[in-house]
């Protein structure tokens, strides 16, 4: 079947002109960048207060399509959005037609009827005005990690990418008790580009969204989302009859759901296998407890049938001497985050929509994690991520913060003459980031805008994520406040933030600002290599604009390198207060004295203007414009939406400039690629003949 979206409008056979489908990609205005959530609901008033805050935090717009609810779903949706201060980003629309239930009723409904599930979906998604859309259900609740990941994707996605995500069924018995099913691996595509060729069509039991055959798929990790099933309600009301899904292999997931639902209702949960009974501590609703604490901390893989990730929780030994300096590469002894357990990285596994593999395979005893007791209080945990370009004083800032008592995970990268203060970098963190970067062949200062999506994609691997979480968790068992600094960190801010959230820590960001001419001249002096100053300047713009975007909306500070050198106390104190770092707010006079001996005016290093660097006009102007937008943000009140818009516009200009340069220089890029096999038989024969003749 071809996509129904080739013409501008799709009419319905009933002639309800107000409910014709006007495909947004055929509209007069180009679609805005970003991600919109579409939730179709019927009588989900009970769930909306838990479902909506997550998607409102994760995506720029949320469209709720209310299909004849009688329980006040629309009103509850609006009041929930108001409570989280997002009323302006929520749209509630009414779809006033009976929609065929899944199964036989769906099968016999024409796809151009307003009663068809496929038509309903097409109409619903036609309300989206952004370049990507996310299908959501009225019973799906995000974890903080899920929110963080989707927020990043909202600005990172470009081109034909399909995002799939596992979700975990959570059967809610009461406000304090629920059961999580580890026996179902339910992975579906949720995020789609908004373009022709992505329309909904009819399948046998339900609808299906089309996409091109060879689309890039990005699979999100487990533990981002639960799907609520209330044991006291009829969860199968939207089905014609349970018999409809009794036979087909396509409906295996539904059969497991049916089995678990009824098994739990009858109190037989132990017999079902792979069911976790979770009891929330007093005063906490079990859904909040599961999404905010239990699931983030729970053993991975969550799905009992997935191969083990073989991540050793606890101390991960590393060899400091094996880390070359100043650019640490591969330290022996660190577990390779790239090493995927066989089968785990195979995206085809259970990726077929809805074709779940119910399994009764029980987990080995040593893997079982008993987390039914209430988890400890993590409210004091802070993860400070120091971002920004290398040679911008990130070491200086981290050293100050460390001297005041925020912990740099040990051991540290050893100092050398290029950085007399020491790098204040954790060897483990550096080696971890470095391996992931190497995996996709991305340079520490890579100027390609598309490299951001590449690093996001590699950071979705379940093994690196679990490794990072396990390591970070072990660090937090010893210290409440931890600082991570590494010039590669900006590439993986999303993964580090998510790992921090899973440990229960509050992640925050400090971005160092130093004028690009100083950064570039310092880099050309310290790290001479194939990159010229133009490329270094471009890399600075790329790093700064995208770091700003990645930290937007989070707890963050921008710090001027020059101001730290001038009077660090004036800078660090407000930073500690803003990010709520006890080590800084509670620093003693002794601490301050000790730090003052470290910071000396001689640290002011290299200087030089643009003309000395020989950097071309356009990129120099962009670097200056970026600097002019970023520097005022050292004053937190300047972190405004107007400035964000200006930075977004600079980011678009930069991406366009790099696209143009790549287009012109494509011959050079091609020539750097693999050489064609020359017709050497021909040439060698000619050369031999000539040699013989010429003597």
């Amino acid at each position, binding site marked *: 079947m071809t996509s129904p979206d080739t013409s501008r409008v799709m009419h319905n056979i009933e002639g309800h002109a107000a409910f014709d489908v006007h495909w947004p990609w055929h509209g007069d205005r180009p679609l805005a960048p970003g991600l919109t959530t579409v939730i179709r609901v019927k009588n989900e008033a009970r769930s909306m207060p838990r479902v909506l805050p997550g998607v409102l935090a994760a995506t720029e717009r949320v469209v709720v399509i209310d299909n004849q609810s009688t329980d006040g779903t629309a009103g509850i949706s609006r009041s929930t959005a108001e409570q989280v201060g997002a009323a302006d980003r929520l749209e509630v629309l009414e779809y006033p037609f009976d929609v065929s239930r899944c199964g036989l009723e769906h099968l016999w409904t024409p796809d151009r009827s307003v009663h068809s599930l496929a038509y309903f979906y097409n109409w619903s998604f036609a309300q989206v005005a952004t370049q990507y859309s996310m299908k959501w259900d009225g019973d799906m609740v995000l974890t903080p990690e899920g929110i963080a990941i989707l927020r990043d994707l909202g600005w990172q996605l470009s081109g034909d990418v399909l995002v799939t995500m596992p979700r975990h069924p959570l059967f809610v018995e009461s406000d304090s008790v629920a059961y999580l099913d580890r026996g179902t691996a339910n992975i579906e595509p949720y995020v789609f580009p908004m373009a022709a060729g992505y329309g909904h069509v009819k399948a046998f039991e339900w609808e299906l969204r089309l996409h091109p055959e060879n689309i890039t798929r990005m699979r999100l990790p487990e533990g981002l989302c639960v799907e609520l099933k209330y044991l006291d309600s009829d969860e199968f009301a939207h089905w014609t009859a349970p018999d409809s899904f009794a036979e087909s292999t396509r409906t295996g997931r539904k059969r497991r759901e049916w089995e678990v639902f009824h098994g739990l209702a009858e109190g037989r949960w132990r017999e079902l296998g792979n069911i976790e009974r979770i009891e929330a501590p007093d005063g906490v609703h079990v859904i909040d407890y599961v999404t905010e604490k239990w699931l983030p901390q729970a053993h991975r893989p969550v799905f009992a049938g997935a191969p083990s990730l073989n991540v050793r929780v606890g101390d991960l030994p590393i060899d400091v001497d094996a880390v070359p300096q100043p650019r640490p590469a591969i330290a022996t002894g660190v577990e390779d985050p790239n090493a995927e357990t066989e089968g785990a990285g195979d995206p085809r596994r259970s990726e077929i929509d809805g074709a779940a593999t119910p399994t009764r395979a029980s987990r080995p005893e040593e893997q079982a994690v008993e987390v039914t007791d209430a988890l400890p209080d993590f409210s004091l945990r802070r993860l400070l991520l120091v971002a920004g370009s290398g040679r911008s004083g990130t070491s200086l800032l981290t050293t100050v913060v460390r001297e005041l008592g925020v912990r740099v995970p040990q051991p540290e990268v050893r100092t050398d003459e290029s950085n007399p203060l020491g790098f204040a970098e954790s060897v483990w963190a550096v080696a971890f980031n470095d391996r992931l970067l190497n995996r996709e*062949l*991305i*340079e520490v200062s*890579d*100027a*390609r805008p598309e*490299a951001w999506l590449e690093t996001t994609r590699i950071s979705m691997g379940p093994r690196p994520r679990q490794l990072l979480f396990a390591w970070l968790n072990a660090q937090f068992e010893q210290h409440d406040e931890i600082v991570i600094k590494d010039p590669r960190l900006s590439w993986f801010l999303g993964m580090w933030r998510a790992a921090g959230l899973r440990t229960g820590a509050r992640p925050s960001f400090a971005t160092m600002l130093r004028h690009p001419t100083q950064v570039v001249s310092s880099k050309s002096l310290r790290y001479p290599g*194939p*990159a*010229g100053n*133009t*490329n270094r300047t*471009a*890399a600075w713009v790329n790093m700064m604009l995208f770091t700003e975007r990645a930290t937007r909306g989070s707890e963050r500070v921008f710090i001027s390198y020059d101001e730290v050198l001038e009077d660090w106390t004036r800078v660090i104190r407000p930073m500690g207060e803003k990010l709520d770092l006890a080590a800084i707010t509670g620093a003693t006079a002794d601490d301050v004295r000790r730090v003052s001996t470290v910071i000396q005016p001689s640290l002011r290093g290299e200087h030089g203007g643009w003309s000395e660097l020989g950097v*071309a006009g356009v*990129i120099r102007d962009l670097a200056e414009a970026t600097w002019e937008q970023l520097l005022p943000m050292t004053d937190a009140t300047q972190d405004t939406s107007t400035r964000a818009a200006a930075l977004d516009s600079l980011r678009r200009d930069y991406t366009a*400039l*790099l*696209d*143009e*340069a*790549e*287009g*012109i*220089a*494509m*011959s*050079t*890029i*091609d*020539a*750097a*690629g*693999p*050489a*064609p*096999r*020359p*017709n*050497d038989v*021909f*040439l060698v024969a*000619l*050369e031999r*003949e*000539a*040699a013989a*003749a*010429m003597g």
Partner: protein
Amino acid sequence: MPHDERAVAGASGEQPTPVRSMVVVAGSGRSGTSTMAGVLRQLGLYVPQPEVVADSTNPLGFGEPQWVVDLHNALLSRAHVHASDARPAAWHLVDQTVSDAIRWHLDRWLVAQFRDALEADVTELVVKDPRVSWFLPTWIGAAHRANARACTLTMLRPPAEVVASKSTYYGGRMADSNRTAAWINMMLHTEYMTRDTTRSFVRYHDLLDDWTTVLYRVGQQLGLQGIENATTDNIRRVHQFVDPGLRRVTTGWDGIEVPEGLRELAEETWEELGALVTTEGETDLVHKRLDDLRAAYTELYEGAELLAMSSVIAARRRTRQQPPRPLEPPAGRLDKVAWLVPHSVRARIPARLRTKARASVIRLRRGLR
């Protein structure tokens, strides 16, 4: 085809050794170089044989000698340079691949071609290949050594049309930028390298509109006997050969996504080259302007290269990570039989039968196991 008058003159031995001329038809691909080579052939110039066979993209034939095409391809490939390469530095890379051995072969080939031409009583031959611009100094040198005049005839077509006409090579807007840059690179360097030769420039549209005035001028500029002595039969055949259906409307830059600076440079290049269509246009001022444009293009390209350095580094790293490709597919016992059959023989078997034969070999092998 024999020229009656000259056949008589040659036989009588009254004329001195006839002047040999080699006409190189240069210019970007999709600019009418095949049409021009065909016209020259109809007017009596000799096209070295055997030629690349005609196909659907050029039903009238390319006028390209197979050996020349093979040689150019092999050398470009050894230099790791694309036929439409936008790098100003690529010219030097190609030069370096031309060894004494290659020159020795070129000399021999050219002498043999002049001998074949003379058998048809022609002393003027056409060398045409869209890649020939990369090897202009080599060909000009070979002509001198063969005691022949080296003439060049460069076809001109508006860059927007060339870019639009070329089949999609890379996706998206990058493709158009790179093709535009490649056009500038090829045209400006071709002009520069032909400056000391007897040369002529022809706009594709002029050729299609009224080839007689164009070829008359070319004949005078290049001093070609074939054109000056063309018979009515020749002229009639050219009329039948030049396909008025090729006349197309000028498209302009609409729908082609190219950065403004690059487009301006392409337009200026087109304007300046247009001045060279008349002999009077060959002034120091025009040459100076073209030199300036070449410098401006080099600067623009190198600027883009610097900005795109991360992509270059990434491509380099990817290349280093790839294992070397095996030279031959891993072959089982029965496959090896196929390798014993000389390639020239295998190539004569129609593809459909070859596929069938291969399938039956695979079936047979499965059966044996």
